[in-house]
């Protein structure tokens, strides 16, 4: 199917027709923050049949980063003579001692970078400073982190280190399915990650668990077409992997990127928010690159701490509850004062839900700083642009 020629009205018709023929509720899970946001931004949820549910699984890099990792990051950023370089999303994630944004307001040198190589360049240009890069994300961002380590090694930049909390999608899916924590009819698989790891990477899990899976892109019609196909597969009892994001996604993936990742990193046991420690589900630096490990250089152990009281981000990620079912949602926890990571990240389910789907009552609680419309006589004054 040529996705660029997909007509959205026809796709939605297929989705509704297949949903009508199933005669039961079906749910699918996407495991990609970009899918989460795109589905909400396009208003797709408001167009879906009542018996089809799209859950947001553990796909937002910020949301799945454990509280301990976040505290470690903030501790690194707060060290004297350290410049912490990070992607923008991590800036507002709150740990036990506030966020990087707040650490910056108290004097920490925290910089948002667009490219890992910017961080290496900054380190090379400022040899008197220690530069730590927050290496966060799935297989999409891991190659850039690996490239930065290789570049720093190549240029002999000794004041550059990384704090690694990269995650791998297949072990996470495997953990969700093998534990029985998640019961879904199929997965909408992320186009970007799949470009790197390739379609073949999913086949063992698809076979083992008898899954229906569609690899989909990020345009509105891509996501809708993926959902329509998943619903048709559920209707027809088809359990297989389909790649709707070709030619971008090949069976083998991007071998060069895979090679760069495995040159620098090896799989390790890492902790996921809401899921706990999953064997082999993350990346750690290989021993020969240990000199680039910020945790080692600055003696920053990861101390896993309990999640904030009342926060149900872990259950939200598993699709066990919707954000609105969390007591903190929209009251104590809002984007401006986020408690859980799913509210902090712009890709997080809670923030997407809050921004795009909340009800009027949630809005009124959020708009506590908005005053009611002024009721003044026509000649009364107006104010300044604050």
């Amino acid at each position: 199917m040529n996705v660029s020629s997909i007509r959205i009205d026809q796709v939605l018709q297929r989705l509704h027709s297949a949903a009508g023929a199933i005669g039961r509720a079906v749910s699918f899970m996407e495991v990609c923050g970009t899918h989460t946001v795109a589905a909400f931004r396009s208003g797709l949820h408001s167009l879906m049949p009542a018996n089809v549910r799209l859950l947001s699984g553990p796909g937002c890099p910020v949301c799945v980063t454990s509280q301990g990792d976040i505290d470690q990051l903030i501790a690194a950023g707060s060290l004297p003579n350290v410049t912490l370089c990070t992607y923008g999303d991590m800036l507002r994630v709150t740990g036990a001692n506030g966020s990087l944004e707040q650490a910056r307001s108290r004097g920490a040198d925290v910089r948002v970078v667009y490219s890992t190589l910017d961080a290496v360049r900054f380190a090379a240009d400022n040899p008197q400073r220690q530069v730590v890069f927050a290496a966060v994300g799935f297989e999409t961002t891991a190659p850039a982190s690996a490239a930065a380590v290789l570049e720093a090694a190549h240029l002999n930049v000794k004041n550059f280190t990384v704090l690694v909390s990269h995650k791998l999608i297949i072990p996470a899916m495997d953990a969700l399915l093998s534990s029985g924590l998640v019961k879904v009819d199929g997965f909408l698989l992320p186009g970007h990650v799949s470009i790197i790891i390739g379609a073949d990477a999913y086949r063992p899990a698809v076979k083992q668990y008898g899954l229906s899976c569609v690899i989909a892109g990020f345009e509105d019609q891509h996501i809708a077409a993926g959902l329509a196909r998943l619903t048709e597969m559920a209707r027809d009892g088809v359990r297989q992997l389909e790649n709707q994001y070709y030619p971008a996604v090949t069976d083998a993936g991007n071998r060069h990127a895979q090679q760069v990742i495995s040159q620098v990193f090896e799989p390790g046991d890492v902790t996921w928010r809401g899921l706990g420690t999953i064997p082999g589900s993350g990346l750690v630096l290989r021993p020969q690159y240990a000199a680039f490990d910020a945790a080692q250089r600055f003696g920053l152990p990861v101390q896993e701490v309990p999640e904030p009281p009342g926060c149900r981000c872990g259950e939200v990620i598993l699709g066990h509850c919707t954000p609105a079912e969390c007591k903190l949602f929209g009251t104590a926890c809002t984007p401006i004062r986020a408690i859980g990571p799913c509210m902090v990240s712009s890709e997080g389910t809670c923030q997407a839900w809050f921004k795009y789907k909340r009800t009027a009552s949630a809005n009124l609680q959020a708009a506590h700083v908005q005053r009611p419309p002024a009721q003044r006589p026509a000649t009364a004054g107006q104010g300044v642009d604050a």
Partner: protein
Amino acid sequence: MTRFTHIVLAHGGGGQLTDELVAQCVLPRLGNAVLSDLLDSGIVQTQGADGRPLRLATTIDSYVVQPLVFPGGDIGRLAVSGTVNDLCVCGARPLGLALGMILAEGLERSLLEQVLDSIQQTAAEAGIKIVTGDTKVVGRGQADGMYLTTSGIGMIESDLRLHPDQVRAGDLLIINGPIADHGLAVMLAREMPQVRSVLHSDVAPLNGLIAAAMESSREIVFMRDATRGGLAAVAADLAARSGLHVVLEESSIPLRPETLHAAEMLGLDPLEVANEGKVLMVVRPQAAPAVLEALHRHPLGQQAAIIGCIEQKADGLCEIRTPIGGRRIVAKPYGEQLPRIC
């Protein structure tokens, strides 16, 4: 109580955090009937020599943009346009501007002169003069080379009250052209100077355009220039302050493809990106054709379009209808725009 013990950058983003700072720190101390209305200008009333009431609008804005010169403009053009626009969206005819310059030791004189020339040219374009000013110099490395502040005063000659409380169900929303050009042009110039881009800031004084629109109809009920926080902030604010339901039609909002691509590349939402030459007008439905025609005749309004309406639902929410026919809420942005990870 706010959890912020120190100011963060997002406090200056024109979003929810700016609102919170103003509501918690400024208004409890300085609030009064004029200031607390939080419009683009403060309007004070006095009497003319003939005893007739005179309404004066006054406004002030500071400019800290980096880089000082960017595609489509510079800090000087911004400083004149921003203040002129804050006056004229309140229905005022600008009378004069005051200019405050904070210069850093080491600033190249030629750059200062370039900015001053730009101020002069933009003021001439707006038909206004700089009537007073101030110059201070701070140490090297401070003030990013140059900060400007402009304050303006204007006369409100019409008896129209442009205010969110005038807005009612059935009114239409008009914008004078494509959104998000300014913020993305500046951001690309600052963050990715190596990227060659065709984007240009839309920074321009809008008093001519707004005067033409107001001459075409007396049924413009509210205007706001969509600066920091973009169209999303202005539309969400309009909903909250009018208490009504604002509906935007995403496919009707003018947006250049190259701007959309830049926003996608940086992981930003064009609705939340700053403009410096765009005004959102709320007009009675019967007035829309005349206002649109007047805007289309002006060079700064050739792509003006009706982009939404006010619906009778007292929930104070802004909703957008997406190109695929879905609906979602548009919220006021948080503050600082953060690029997404992937």
